[in-house]
């Protein structure tokens, strides 16, 4: 599960000179290959900035998968029956598996899994904001599995058209698995929506809580800049945040309404003239606050990861010294 890459001010500052310093012939050849639809592979020449942005993108994506396992993971042991329990276990397992695939894809660009995880734990590298919100009830897990995974599919199928071979191949498999998550999530939502009044209320409450994080999921509107253009040209960024948000709203708002649920935004409507969805300002200030560590669960999520790292340290150390204790018998 993941949201879109957002260009930060600091990226823009460091950018121009770096690209200018590249060998112009190699750069032209690289861009021509991408233009022809070829994939860039790990041993191919690539501009420094391409490598840097891809590492950041894939790493954030990988972190989002392992952190994303936490809010739903806490509901596995509470799942209400065998069918849901088995499905939720498989789903959360998939998310961890996606992290494994993505860390491997990022490693092909020269950053080790350990370095990436250290940067996650220190707060240096980010993950999707959406996982800094709590899953308070069972209905939250249904909303996450349906709508957050739906958002992730839109984002990931878009990114799967990108230029970097290892990332694209990982995404193809990930999208295939996510499509099952979506079915599972929708099925869970339908049971709640057609269930008892209490179940319906749980579901509506969960949707109310998750709507804003969902609107934030694809990131704030992109500011048009030459840097964004470069990422688009290099097929690192394949659609604007708003384009993906519009696609999501187009696909899912009618389905949400069809279930008799209310979306907590009185201004949400599709403008018949422009064909675009209009909505209230989803409070981008909150988005930046959460990115900067002040969301409802940022501290808790990182604390859990640090705890897991700390508790597992002896295992990793032991794996690196497989025969430390063992002495070959004399006879």
């Amino acid at each position, binding site marked *: 599960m993941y949201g879109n890459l957002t260009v930060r001010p600091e990226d823009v500052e460091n950018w121009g000179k770096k690209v200018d310093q590249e060998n112009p012939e190699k750069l032209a050849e690289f861009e021509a290959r991408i233009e022809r639809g070829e994939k860039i592979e790990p041993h191919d020449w690539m501009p420094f900035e391409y490598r840097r942005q891809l590492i950041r993108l894939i790493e954030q994506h990988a972190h989002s998968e392992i952190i994303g396992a936490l809010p739903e993971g806490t509901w596995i042991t509470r*799942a209400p029956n065998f069918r849901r329990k088995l499905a939720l276990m498989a789903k959360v397992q998939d998310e961890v598996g996606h992290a494994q695939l993505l860390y491997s894809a990022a490693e092909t660009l020269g950053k080790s899994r350990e370095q990436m995880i250290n940067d996650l734990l220190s707060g240096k590298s980010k993950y999707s904001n959406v996982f800094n919100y709590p899953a308070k009830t069972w209905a939250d897990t249904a909303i996450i599995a349906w709508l957050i995974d739906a958002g992730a599919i839109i984002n990931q199928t878009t990114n799967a058209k990108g230029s970097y071979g290892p990332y694209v191949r990982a995404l193809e498999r990930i999208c295939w698995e996510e499509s099952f998550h979506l079915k599972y999530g929708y099925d869970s939502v339908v049971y709640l929506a057609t269930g*008892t009044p*209490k179940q319906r209320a749980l579901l509506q409450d969960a949707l109310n809580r998750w709507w804003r994080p969902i609107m934030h999921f694809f990131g704030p509107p992109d500011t048009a800049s030459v840097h964004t253009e470069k990422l688009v040209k290099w097929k690192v960024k394949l659609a604007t945040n708003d384009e993906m948000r519009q696609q999501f709203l187009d696909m899912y708002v009618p389905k949400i309404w069809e279930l008799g649920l209310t979306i907590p935004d009185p201004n949400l409507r599709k403008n018949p003239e422009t064909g675009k969805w209009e909505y209230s300002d989803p409070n981008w200030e909150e988005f930046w606050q959460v990115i900067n560590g002040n969301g409802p669960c940022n501290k808790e999520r990182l604390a859990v990861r640090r705890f897991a790292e700390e508790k597992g340290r002896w295992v990793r150390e032991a794996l690196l010294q497989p025969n430390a204790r063992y002495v070959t018998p004399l006879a």
Partner: protein
Amino acid sequence: MIEALETLLLSLADDDLCMGHRHAEWIGLGPILEEDIAFASIAQDETGHAQAYYQILTDLGLRTPDEYGFHRAPAEYRCAHLVELPNFEYDYGFALMRHFLYDAAEQVKLQALRNSRYDPLAGLAERLLREEKYHWLHAQTWIHRLGRSTEEAHTRLKNALQMTWPYAWMLFEPLPYEAEMVEAGWTPPMAELRTRWLELIAPILQEVDLFPPAPSEEELSSLAGARSGRRSPYFEDLYREFTEVSASEPGAEW
């Protein structure tokens, strides 16, 4: 006879249900990602196996798997206390040792049950063994690997074994109605299975300098009664957790 059959199947099913629960707690918190994934797979298998055992009873006109799994009173469960134990602050040494001892027991039980004269159980045992093979391979590989590595790893495994040993021994506590079951050819006696289990694990543990002496009668008697419904002090929280959602709206479908 039906009480005997129910006791046998519930002891197998409830063990797997709780083991699946405990293993699932590692998803997102393992020492390396590959172990989150491995424990998640094993947890899914065990949970699915519990469901399959319950289904045999359902096919006889008794309760459904969900009723057995999620809607019984605590005293109706027949699991061994080993699987009720928590993961103790995510102690991987403990989780691994329990997994090793438990899956060795599953190997022995299922190998015997594939020859059960109760056909539905024999058929199921045959099917489950195909998945259990990988649990057992996973557990052995890790004991072998960590047991030969650092002093710290060895000490942790040793402590874990000391703690889990009497509990694991009691996986083979004689079952109520056991004489009837043995007479009917459904299962060998538990004591016999325990001997086979010891034969299976001894060489592996000895190789990494870990094989302990038999637990004392005193240790064992303090753990007696699990198969008749005596729950450990850890069961209450475990039960509250796995019934939390299902009990929140009785009769609802999820």
